[in-house]
C-alpha cells in the first residue's frame, strides 16, 4: 500500500506540477471572479467563502480523470488488480494520493487567497480548517467517479457531471462554516457535519470504488 502511495506521489511530481497545477488554477479562478464581480471589497468579502470553496472544488476536479485512466491505459490497473493489493485499499490510497497533491496544498494556500478576497481575519483559520476537513471527501468522491468512468474514452466531462452533484453536501457545509466564522457566528456545527461527511466518504466510498473497478476490468 505504502509502495503504491509513494509510486503515485512520485508520478504526480514527475508528471510536472503535480502540486502546483491545481494551486495555479485556484489562483487564476479567484482572480477571474474578482474581475467578474468588480473590485468592491464588501461584495468580495461576502461571497468569498462560497468562491473559495467552489474554487477548491473545481481545482480538485481537474486531476480526477488521471487517477485511474493512466493506469488503465498502460495496463498497470490489470496488473495491480491481479496483484496481492486489495482493490479497496488501492482506491483508498489513490484518493489519499490525490488529496495530498491537491486538497492539502489548496487548504494551506487558501488563506492567502482569502486575504485577496477581503475575508475577515477570524474566518481565515476556519477556511483552512474547513478545507482540511472537507477536501478529503472531495478526493474520495472523485476517486469513486474516476472508478465509474475508468473505461470510458474521453470520460472527463462525464466524470464532472457525475461527481459535481455528489460534492453538494460538502460544499454547503464547508462554505457555511466559513461564512458563519466571517459573520461572527459559531462555525462548529457545519464543521462537524462536514467532517462527518468526510469520515463517512473515506470509510465507505473505497468499497464502492473497488466494486466499480472490478466491473470495469471484467
Amino acid at each position, binding site marked *: 500500500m505504502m509502495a503504491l502511495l509513494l509510486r503515485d506521489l512520485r508520478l504526480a511530481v514527475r508528471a510536472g506540477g503535480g502540486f502546483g497545477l491545481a494551486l495555479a488554477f485556484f489562483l487564476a479562478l479567484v482572480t477571474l471572479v474578482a474581475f467578474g464581480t468588480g473590485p468592491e471589497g464588501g461584495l468580495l468579502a461576502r461571497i468569498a467563502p462560497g468562491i473559495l470553496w467552489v474554487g477548491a472544488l473545481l481545482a480538485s476536479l481537474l486531476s480526477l480523470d488521471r487517477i485511474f485512466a493512466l493506469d488503465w491505459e498502460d495496463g498497470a490497473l490489470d496488473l495491480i488488480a491481479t496483484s496481492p493489493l486489495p482493490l479497496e485499499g488501492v482506491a483508498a490510497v489513490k484518493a489519499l494520493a490525490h488529496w495530498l497533491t491537491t486538497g492539502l496544498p489548496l487548504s494551506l494556500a487558501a488563506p492567502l487567497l482569502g486575504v485577496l478576497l477581503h475575508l475577515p481575519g477570524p474566518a481565515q483559520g476556519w477556511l483552512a480548517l474547513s478545507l482540511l476537513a472537507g477536501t478529503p471527501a472531495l478526493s474520495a468522491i472523485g476517486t*469513486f467517479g474516476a472508478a*465509474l*468512468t475508468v*473505461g*470510458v474514452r474521453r*470520460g472527463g466531462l*462525464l466524470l464532472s*457531471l*457525475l461527481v*459535481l*452533484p*455528489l460534492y*453538494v*453536501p460538502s460544499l*454547503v*457545509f464547508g462554505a*457555511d462554516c466559513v461564512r458563519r466564522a466571517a459573520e461572527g457566528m459559531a462555525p462548529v456545527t*457545519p464543521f462537524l*457535519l462536514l467532517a462527518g*461527511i468526510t469520515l463517512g466518504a473515506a470509510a465507505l*466510498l473505497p468499497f*464502492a470504488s473497488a*466494486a*466499480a473497478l472490478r*466491473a*470495469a476490468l*471484467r
Partner: protein
Amino acid sequence: MSLWEYANPTKFMETSGKLLPWAASAAGLTLAAGLGWGFFLTPEDFRQGASVKVLYVHVPTAMMAINAWLMMLVASLVWLVRRHHVSALAAKAAGPVGATMTLCALVTGALWGAPVWGSWWEWDPRLTSFLVLFLFYLGYMALWAAIENPDTAADMTAILCLVGSVFAVLSRYAANFWSQGMHQGASLSLAPGERMDAAFRYPLYLCMAGFVLLFVALVLLRTRTEIRLRRLAAIEARERMA
C-alpha cells in the same frame, strides 16, 4: 411459483405484453378524468386564482420524480444481488422517465411560482433538491450511454444509483441547513387542519394515481424495448461468431 420467475426475460415479455395495454389505457383514463376534474370542475383558490390548478400536474410529477429514483434504487439492488438482467434494464428504462418527471415538476413549479411568489425560481431547499435530483438523473443516463459493455454499464449505474441515493438524502438535508425556503410544507398532510379542501384533494388523488399508472406503463414499454435491443445485439453477436 416465485416472484423471481418474472426476472426471466421471456416470462417478463409475455406478462408485460399482456399487462401493457391495460396499464396504458388505465393511465390514459385516470389522467383524463383527474386532470379534467381538476382543471375544469374545481373552484379557484381565493388567493391564488386559477394558477392553483398547476397543482394537479406539479404534485404528482414531483412525487413520481422521487418514486422513480426509489424504483431505480430497488431495481439496481436486485441487479447487484441477484444479477437479473430485466431488473437492470428496468432501472435503465426508468431513468429518462424519472428525469422527465423531475423536469415537469421543476417547470410546473416555475409556472406556479411566477404569479404566486413573483419569481420563476427561488433558491429554496425543495426546489434546489429537485435540481440536484435532476442532475443525478442526467449523470445516471449519461453513464448508461457512455459504457459499451451492457453488463459493466449495469454494474456501474447500479453502484452510482446506490451512492447517489445516499448523497441525494445528504443534499436534501444540507439544503435544509443552507436555506429556510419559502415552499409550502407537505401538500397532503394527515394532520387535521393542514389538509387542503376535499374539493381539491380528490381530483389530486386521481391525478396521482394517473401519474403512477403512466409511469408503470412507460417503464414497461421502455423495458420491453431494452430487452428487444439486447436480443438484437445477442443475435448480431451470434451471427458474427458463426
